[in-house]
C-alpha cells in the first residue's frame, strides 16, 4: 500500500530533481565558500547566483536582498529579536510558534507585546491590529498564510497602513506557508519576510530572511562574518543550492499548481462527511491548507486511525501537537471540543486527484468508525 501524504504544511518530500542538481555541492563542490582558492570561489559564485534567483521570484533584487538561515524559525527569530528591542511589538494571535514563543521571550525582556484578534477563519482583524500600532511600536509582524487554517492576510495592504500610522515601525511577515504557493511580490512597505525551503520541495536546513536593503538587522549568531556579518556559520551549500533549484521549479508551476490544488481542496470540502466534519478554513484561504474539525472526537486519535489506513494528515500544527488544544484555532473563536477535533489536510503540487478520492473515503470512514466506537 503506498502512503498518501497530506501533511505538506508540516514538510514536503524533497524534490528529487532539485536534490540531483544540488548533489554536486555535497560531494564534489564541498568547499567552504568563504575560502580564497578558486574552487571555493566557484562555490561562492554559485551561492550568490542562487541568492539572486530566489530573491527575484518575489522581489526586485535592486531593492531586496536575503540572508540564508537554517530554517524559517531562525529567520522569524532574527527579525523579531533584531527589530523589537524597545517600545511595543504588535503581532496577531494567528502566528506560528516561531513568532509566538519568541514574542513571549521579548515580553520577558521588557518589550510590550500586543496581539491582534483573528476573525473566525484565522485572518488577522485589520482594524484591531491598526489600533494597536502607535508611535512607540518598533515592529509589526503578521503571518502571511496561517499555518493552521491557511488564512491569507493581505500583508501588502496591512504594511502600507502600518507605515502610514508609524513610518518608523518595521514590518515583518512570516511567509513560510505562502512562498512558492500563492502569487505575491514584496512591496516597499514590507521590510522583512521569512521563508523556508522544506515547505516547497526543499530539504531541511535552509531558510531565508528577505530584507529591504534600506533596513538593517542585527545578527543572532556571531562568528566568521558570513552573510554580510548578519548570519555567521559556514554556509549549508547543498541545502541552499537544492532550495534554489526547488524554488525555481515551484515558481515555474505556481499558478498551474494553485488552480489544481484549488480543485483538490474544493473536492475535499464537498466530499467530507458533514455529519462528522466542519470546515474551519475560509473560502479565501490558501488552497494548500484545509483545516477541519471532527467536533467531539479527538483529532489525534482520528489521525492515528487514518494513518493506519495509509493516509497521513496533520492535527493542528505539528509544532504544537504537544499541547492539547490549538492556540490558533481557539483564537478563531472555536470551543474546546472543536479545537480538540482538528485535522489539518495539506496538499502539495504532487498530490493527485486519485489520492484525494481515496483519502476522502478513508477520512470519512475513520470519522464514522471513531464516532461509533466512542459513542
Amino acid at each position, binding site marked *: 500500500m503506498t502512503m498518501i501524504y497530506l501533511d505538506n504544511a508540516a514538510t514536503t518530500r524533497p524534490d528529487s530533481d532539485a536534490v540531483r542538481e544540488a548533489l554536486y555541492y555535497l560531494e564534489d563542490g564541498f568547499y567552504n565558500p568563504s575560502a580564497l582558492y578558486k574552487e571555493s570561489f566557484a562555490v561562492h559564485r554559485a551561492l550568490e547566483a542562487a541568492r539572486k534567483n530566489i530573491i527575484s521570484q518575489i522581489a526586485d533584487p535592486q531593492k531586496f536582498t536575503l540572508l540564508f538561515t537554517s530554517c524559517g524559525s531562525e529567520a522569524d527569530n532574527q527579525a523579531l529579536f533584531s527589530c523589537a528591542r524597545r517600545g511595543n511589538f504588535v503581532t496577531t494571535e494567528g502566528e506560528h510558534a516561531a513568532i509566538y514563543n519568541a514574542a513571549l521571550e521579548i515580553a520577558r525582556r521588557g518589550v510590550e507585546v500586543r496581539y491582534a484578534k483573528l476573525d473566525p477563519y484565522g485572518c488577522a482583524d485589520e482594524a484591531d491590529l491598526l489600533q494597536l500600532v502607535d508611535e512607540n511600536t518598533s515592529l509589526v509582524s503578521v503571518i502571511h498564510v496561517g499555518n493552521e487554517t491557511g488564512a491569507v492576510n493581505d500583508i501588502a495592504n496591512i504594511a502600507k497602513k502600518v507605515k502610514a500610522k508609524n513610518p518608523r515601525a518595521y514590518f515583518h511577515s512570516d511567509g513560510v506557508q505562502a512562498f512558492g504557493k500563492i502569487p505575491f511580490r514584496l512591496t516597499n512597505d514590507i521590510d522583512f519576510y521569512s521563508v523556508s525551503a522544506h515547505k516547497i520541495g526543499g530539504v531541511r536546513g535552509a531558510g531565508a530572511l528577505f530584507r529591504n536593503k534600506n533596513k538593517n538587522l542585527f545578527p543572532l549568531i556571531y562568528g566568521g562574518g558570513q552573510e554580510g556579518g548578519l548570519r555567521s556559520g559556514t554556509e549549508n551549500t547543498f541545502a541552499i543550492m537544492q532550495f534554489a533549484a526547488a524554488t525555481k521549479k515551484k515558481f515555474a508551476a505556481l499558478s498551474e499548481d494553485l488552480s489544481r490544488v484549488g480543485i483538490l481542496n474544493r473536492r475535499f470540502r464537498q466530499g467530507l462527511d458533514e455529519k462528522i466534519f466542519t470546515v474551519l478554513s475560509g473560502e479565501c484561504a490558501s488552497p494548500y491548507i484545509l483545516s477541519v474539525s471532527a467536533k467531539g472526537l*479527538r483529532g*489525534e*486519535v482520528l489521525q*492515528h*486511525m487514518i*494513518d*493506519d489506513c495509509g493516509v497521513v494528515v496533520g492535527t493542528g500544527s505539528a509544532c504544537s501537537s*504537544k499541547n492539547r488544544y490549538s492556540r490558533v484555532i481557539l483564537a478563531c473563536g472555536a470551543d474546546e471540543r472543536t479545537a480538540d477535533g482538528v485535522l489539518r489536510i495539506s496538499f502539495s503540487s504532487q498530490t493527485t486527484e486519485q489520492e484525494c478520492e481515496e483519502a476522502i473515503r478513508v477520512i470519512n470512514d475513520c470519522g464514522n468508525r471513531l464516532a461509533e466506537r466512542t459513542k
Partner: protein
Amino acid sequence: MREQAEKVIIVRYCEIHLKGKNRGYFEQVFMNNLEKSLSGIRHEIRRPSGRYVIENFDSDRTEEICERVRKVFGVHTLSVGTKVDADLEAIWREIQNIAPESGSFKVETNRADKHFPLNSMQINAEIGGRLLSERPSLRVDVHDPDTILHIDIRENGSALVFEGIVKGAGGMPVGTAGKGMLLLSGGIDSPVAGYMIAKRGMKLECVHFHSYPYTNMQAREKVEELARILADYTGGLVLHVVSVTHIQEEIHKNCPAEMMITLLRRFMMRIAERLCADTGAQCIITGESLGQVASQTIEGMTSSNAVIKHVPVLRPLVGFDKTEIIERAREIGTFETSILPYEDCCTVFLPKHPLIRPKLEKIEVAEAALDVQGLLDEAFSSAEHIAIE
C-alpha cells in the same frame, strides 16, 4: 624511583555479609551484576577480603564507572582511591596529594598484610604526625573528623589510599530474590515501585498497556525510556507491551461508565498474571498508593485482587504520599521522563465520576456482559515483547 600511581575504585557491599551458607551465591550474583554494569568499559574487578576493587581502567572514565556502579543494587558505598606500593614513603606521597590543608582529620589504616613493618596504629600515628608537622592548620579529631584518610595495606605488596565515601544504591543484588511482573504505566509511581522491589534483589519484567489509536507512539516511547532507566539498575529487563484498546471499547459500550477503571484494572491484572505464568515471574508489582486516585482505594484493590489466583500482588508504595514518591522518582532519575505530557491508556474513556468504592458483586455482574476470555486472548495475541538491555 616514582612508581606508577593507579586509580582504583573500592566497592563495599550491603547485607550480603549477613548471609550464612548462601553467601557465595549472593557474592557471585553481585559480581556478575557489577561486571554487567561495566560492560563496554575496560576494567578488572578483584575481590580481596570483604570488598571489591575495580582497577585497570582508563582514569578519565572514573566518573562514568562510579556512576554505573553506584546504581548496582547491593553496593553500599564506594570510594575512588589510588594504588601505590606498600611502602611507607609511597603512601606518604599519595597522602600529601589528597590531604586537606586545614580542618580536622584522622588516618584510618587496615593492614591485611601483617608482614608490613608497622601495625595499623603505628601507621596512623606516623602518617598523622607527619601531616601535623607539615600542615600547621590541620588538627586531629578521631571522633568526628572533617576528613578521613584511609590506608589499606594489601597482601600483594600494594596499598590503597583514598579519602571520601560515596553512597551506593544499597539493597540486595538483583537476581537473588526471584522475578516480578511490574505494571509500568507512563506515570510517576510505577517506576518507583519497580525500583523498590528490584532493590531487594528481585529481577523485573514489565508490562505496559496502551490504547493505540487513543494513545500515541510518543507515550509508548516514554514507557520504553522509563524501562531503560529501570534497566540500568536491574541489569536489563523485558518489557511486554499489550493493547487494551478493544477491552476499553467493549467496557465503554457494555458496562456502566463509572466502572471503566475498575473493570480495566481487572483485565490488566489478569493479563499480568498470565504473563507471570509465561515468564516464570512470581508476583505482580503495582505502583498503587492507598487513596491516591479513585481506583486506588481498598475496595478498588479488593476488586482487582479478586481476579488473581496464583501470585501475590506487591504494592510497595501503598503507604507513601505523592510527595514522597516524587522525591524517590527524582532520586532514581525517572521523574523527568514520567512527567512528559503524553496520555497513557487510563485517561481515555475517563468517566466524569469513577467509582470510589466498587462493590465486588456489582463489578462481577457488570463484567458478565463482556466476553472476558475472548478479550484476554485477543489482547494477548497482540502483545509485543521487547528486551531492554
